[in-house]
């Protein structure tokens, strides 16, 4: 069988996977008696049709860039970090503790501190599974799943028993002080020409984009990144080269958890301005889809995050304006993960066949 050219592997495989996911989603809609065309229109209109829609699409995309990068870094170290959700939740806790601890004079100062808090808490939550994987061989997939649940329980405890202000009914922290509130895109000169009304997308978007560049440089330009990738490709070879498996596993997971935690500056600090239960809204899991779709490259992750931002905002719009339940977006998410992550071989086989046909057709014409 013919191998795929590199460009096809990088672009066609995800696109065809996406196409499969889209076609099946459309079939699902038909089966439940809805019009896929209408649904798509509503999604495009709601997510991309106005600055307001973009405000949400970009807001979601921001979160997904962080979690997608988190999964990516772990993947490069050969680790499947399925614990982004829990790490993001802990990141949220870090943000809340930082924001509530001081009467912050200016958001820039608060942002730096909160980012550190988010990354630290997220990383800490990844540290235990990382240590157990590296030192005791406990399968990181299972431990990170367990840690997601433990994180959820921990957050309930923190919100209900510790952070909830007296007299408040819902399990949420107090509102952050004004000095810890981030400017939304509509508050930023330049952006405010496009976004005239309040939108949830905020300065964190710029941090997310910066992190994509940082992760790229880390993975492909630094010694650490080199070691992470080498370890991820072959643990046995890494050992030969004197790359310490324990060290790399832990560092890669700390970075991954830190990135997942950092998404909380977007939703907790930038949007909700207080810590809510389940603030990460599944973004940790979407990071898996984003990383797979983005072929584990930061640039691809940014594109895939935008796509999922569109999907999430569009899906919310479906829930608002049509009788299609908002869960439609979870279906699409599942399909994308299935095709890009588990059935990639099938997609590749189909493409290889197609390429083979094209090639033999060319050869025939040449002959």
């Amino acid at each position, binding site marked *: 069988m013919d191998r795929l050219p590199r460009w096809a592997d990088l672009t066609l495989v995800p696109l065809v996977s996406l196409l499969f996911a889209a076609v099946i989603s459309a079939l699902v809609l038909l089966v439940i008696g809805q019009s896929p065309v209408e649904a798509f229109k509503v999604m495009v209109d709601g997510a991309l049709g106005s600055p*307001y829609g973009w405000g*949400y699409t970009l807001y979601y995309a921001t979160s997904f860039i962080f979690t997608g990068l988190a999964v990516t870094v772990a993947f490069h170290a050969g680790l499947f970090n399925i614990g982004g959700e829990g790490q993001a939740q802990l990141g949220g806790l870090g943000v809340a503790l930082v924001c509530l601890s001081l009467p912050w004079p200016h958001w820039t100062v608060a942002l730096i501190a909160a980012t550190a808090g988010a990354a630290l808490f997220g990383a800490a939550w990844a540290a235990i599974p990382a240590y157990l994987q590296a030192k005791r061989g406990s399968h990181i997939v299972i431990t990170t799943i367990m840690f997601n649940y433990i994180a959820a329980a921990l957050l*309930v405890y923190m*919100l*209900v028993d510790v952070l909830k202000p007296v007299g408040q*009914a*819902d*399990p*949420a922290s107090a509102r952050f002080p004004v000095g810890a509130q981030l400017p939304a895109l509509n508050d930023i000169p330049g952006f405010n020409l496009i976004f005239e*009304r*309040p939108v*949830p997308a905020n300065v964190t978007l710029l941090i997310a984009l910066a992190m994509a560049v940082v992760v790229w440089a880390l993975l492909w330009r630094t010694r650490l990144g080199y070691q992470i990738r080498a370890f991820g490709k072959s643990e046995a070879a890494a050992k030969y080269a004197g790359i310490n498996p324990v060290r790399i596993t832990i560092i890669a997971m700390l970075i991954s958890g830190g990135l997942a935690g950092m998404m909380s500056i977007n*939703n907790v600090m930038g*949007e*909700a*301005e*207080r810590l*809510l*239960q*389940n*603030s990460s*809204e599944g973004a940790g899991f979407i990071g898996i889809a984003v990383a797979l779709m983005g072929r584990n490259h930061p640039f691809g992750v940014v594109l895939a995050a935008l796509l999922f931002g569109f999907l999430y905002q569009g899906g*919310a*719009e479906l*829930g*608002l*304006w049509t009788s299609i339940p*908002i869960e439609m977006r979870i279906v699409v998410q599942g399909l994308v993960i299935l095709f890009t992550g588990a059935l990639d071989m099938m997609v590749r086989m189909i493409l290889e066949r197609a390429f083979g046909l094209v090639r033999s057709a060319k050869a025939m014409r040449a002959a």
Partner: protein
Amino acid sequence: EPALIYDLGGKFDKSFNEAAYNGAERWAKETGGSYKEIEMQNEAQREQALRRLAEAGSNPIVTTGFGMSDPIATVSKDFPDTKFVTIDGWVDPAEHPNVLTIGFAEHEGSYLVGMMAALASKTGTVSFVGGMDIPLIRNFACGYAQGAVAANPDIKFISNMTGTTPAAWNDPVKGSELAKAQKSQGSDVIFAAAGGTGLGVLQAAADEGILSIGVDSNQNHLHPGSVLTSMLKRVDVAVYNSMTQGAELDTTMQALNLASDGVGYAMDENNAELVTAEMQAAVDAAAEKIKSGELVVHDYRTDDTCPAATF
């Protein structure tokens, strides 16, 4: 065009949110108007839903559940021309003139069903399953306990709360297990004020052959012959009225009580055989006294204490 946002239990919880839905449907049928509706699935969605509806020009935006108060407080400032309604929540009217807070005297309605429970109980033990452990739900429990004690001073009262997060509104498994536990402690009438969780309570009571009391909507029909009555909280009326007033909505805070028919208990063919004439007479007499002010049921929320029970 008005809009309605349901809380986490979902539109068809057969209880609180469904009452709101019924009110909106009644308004739509009577006026031929249409309304937008959204079901919350998640804490973090609330603000987006509010903004999106306000953005689209919905007015008034009616919301159910206390969880909406805080987001409304944020969003209402950005949309001064839009009216917001929070049912069961509380938003400071001084700061937010475009927000209407509607509350209910749950303790009064609960008092009546508490009496009925005590009168129907053969074991001398009645019980309560609450949803999320918040003052609002304790107010239900407290009113219920007061009524039960009034009808039978020797009554034994058991109370369990489902949880401390909104997940407590939608955990029927836990509801039915709590009901079974209460039955094994001797209770034979269980009042569930727990949203979707309550459905599990009512189911378990029916399975176990004991009585239950529904909440918010009339839930008597869910298990005919097993649901003793339902404590009505006329969320439907609140929604209906708000929608009827439309954009001209009067935002003076409302407290709907027994006197204003905001709360009550449900009688229909499904529970006709369970409620004897004497029981009904006793309960109605108490209702009259409450309406007239002769009898004051303690509101747990005023001082966080309950004269008839401890939590």
